[in-house]
């Protein structure tokens, strides 16, 4: 299937600083694609390029298999960095400008403002809103006209816990409608809950990408407990089955090499005459996986 977004080998430099280096990504239709990375990893630059505000130095990107254009951007709801609105205009007028640009009905403003709980403030000037409210207004603008693709850069920025939960629910709701969502976020727990695919950026390069469950399944450690843990440890090292083994109290935390699983450990222990009293595959959180990738 043709991807909704195809980024091919884009690079962007700011003077001597490399913001992005040969980045390639493919975002399929209906997927929720998380872009992760520490500060300065190139997340926002990537999103700014695909939304047309920054030109890449090299490489290309296509939306719906076509070169990017203003007409295509009208079909995409995007929130990049901070909400940008006219401070002296009220909420309804600010959204009217967006609706006109996107060619969407002005009547939709009521729906999106109600969705983000801002309808009661529709006549308030933008500069009278709190940071969280501004972020919610930006989300209203993104949802205006019910676009098929959403590009969200830190959508929960500045929101209180209740606001974060609201945003998560909105994103989940949009994902359930089979919309394509590209999401950059620092809140890895959110990404893990919402995203189907993820790419991890570091210093402008993609260091890992794929389906979230595949990425998390890779290197899942096997945890065992037995009376002869030292014997098991040395035996495993000799066979070359394990990539690393660490002791965690009475337990051994074994990271297996590719192609081996918990079943292999169990069989190997049985062959060695070692009785395992505990065997589990410990699921890594996206956060721990992310931190490991970033450390490498």
């Amino acid at each position, binding site marked *: 299937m043709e991807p909704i977004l195809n980024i091919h080998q884009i690079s962007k430099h700011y003077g001597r600083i490399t913001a992005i280096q040969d980045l390639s990504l493919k975002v399929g239709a209906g997927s929720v694609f998380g872009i992760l990375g520490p500060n300065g990893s190139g997340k926002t630059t990537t999103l700014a390029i695909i939304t047309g505000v920054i030109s890449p130095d090299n490489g290309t990107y296509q939306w719906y298999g076509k070169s990017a254009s203003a*007409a295509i951007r009208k079909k995409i709801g995007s929130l990049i960095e*901070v909400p940008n609105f006219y401070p002296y205009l009220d909420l309804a007028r600010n959204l009217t400008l967006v609706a006109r640009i996107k060619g969407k009905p002005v009547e939709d403003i009521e729906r999106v403002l109600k969705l983000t709980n801002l309808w009661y403030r529709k006549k308030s000037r933008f500069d009278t809103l709190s940071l969280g409210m501004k972020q919610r207004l930006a989300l209203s603008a993104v949802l205006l006209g019910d676009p098929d693709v959403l590009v969200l850069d830190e959508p929960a920025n500045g929101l209180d816990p209740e606001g974060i939960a609201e945003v998560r629910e909105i994103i989940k709701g949009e994902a359930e409608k089979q919309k394509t969502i590209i999401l950059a976020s620092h809140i890895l727990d959110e990404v893990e809950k919402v995203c189907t695919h993820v790419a991890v950026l570091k210093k402008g390069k993609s260091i890992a990408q794929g389906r979230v469950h595949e990425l998390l399944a890779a290197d899942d450690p096997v945890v065992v407990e037995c009376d002869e843990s030292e014997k098991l440890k040395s035996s495993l090292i000799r066979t070359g089955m394990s990539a690393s083994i660490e002791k965690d109290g009475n337990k051994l935390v074994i990271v297996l090499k590719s192609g081996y699983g918990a079943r292999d450990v169990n069989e190997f222990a049985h062959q060695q005459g070692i009785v395992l009293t505990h065997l589990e595959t410990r699921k890594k959180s996206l956060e721990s996986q992310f931190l490991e990738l970033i450390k490498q």
Partner: protein
Amino acid sequence: MKSIILNEYTKIWSYMAFRVIILLHFILFFLVVLVTSRLDITIPGFSTDYLYQFPNIWEFFPWVASWFNLLLAILIILMTGNEYTFRTFRQHVIDGLSRFDLLTGKVFLIIAIAVYSMLMVLLFSLLFGFVFTRDMTAGLFVKKTYILLVYFVQAVAYMSTGFLLAILFRNTALAIVLFILYRLIIEPVFRLFFPPEARLYFPMKVISNLTPMPEFLSISSGNKADPGNVDTLNLREMGILAEDLPVYLNLLLALGYTALFIGLAWLLLRRRNL
């Protein structure tokens, strides 16, 4: 296109600074022409009333209005600078406008403000002209009305200069200061290094010469600007004022500079990150 125009309209009419500057522009012009009309200069053979009669008023009012073009240029700098300050140019592109649409919106705004200013001059010219002109004829009324269009081009040219500076510096205060400095100091000083005939081709000179200072002595002495009248007091012929380029050439040059400034603004908008 309609949505771009409607959006510009929404932006300006809700913006207090815009309304204040337009009101100030209107009131200042009205006050100057009103106060000047009430001046009682008692020099035998001279009367300021002649300035308010057709066709002299078509020269006099656009010249007075040209003093306030600075306000119009500041207005455009403000409206364009705001787009950078609020990062709304960036947001508009994200939302689906092309960079050419950004340019189109501001060019529309420049034209709209120039039309307003021209209509203001027309309105007051008609009001004062009909009050002060005694021996009214169609020929007198129509003569020199083209200066209104020349004034329109001048206003557009001034605002285009301001627009370019706002796009170039992306900072309202800096663009306003540099516009004023360039107009009042930098270009006049720079012109001094060139021979007199070359000085007439500099942008601010070309633009300001579109509505040259009327020949007050000649007009107020009762000469109705008949170039064939050898008895007139003509300051240019007397060598007191420098010779200007012909109006058509000035007009062409001003249009050329306007196109150049807008073209440069377009290049900057297209090439730079928002």
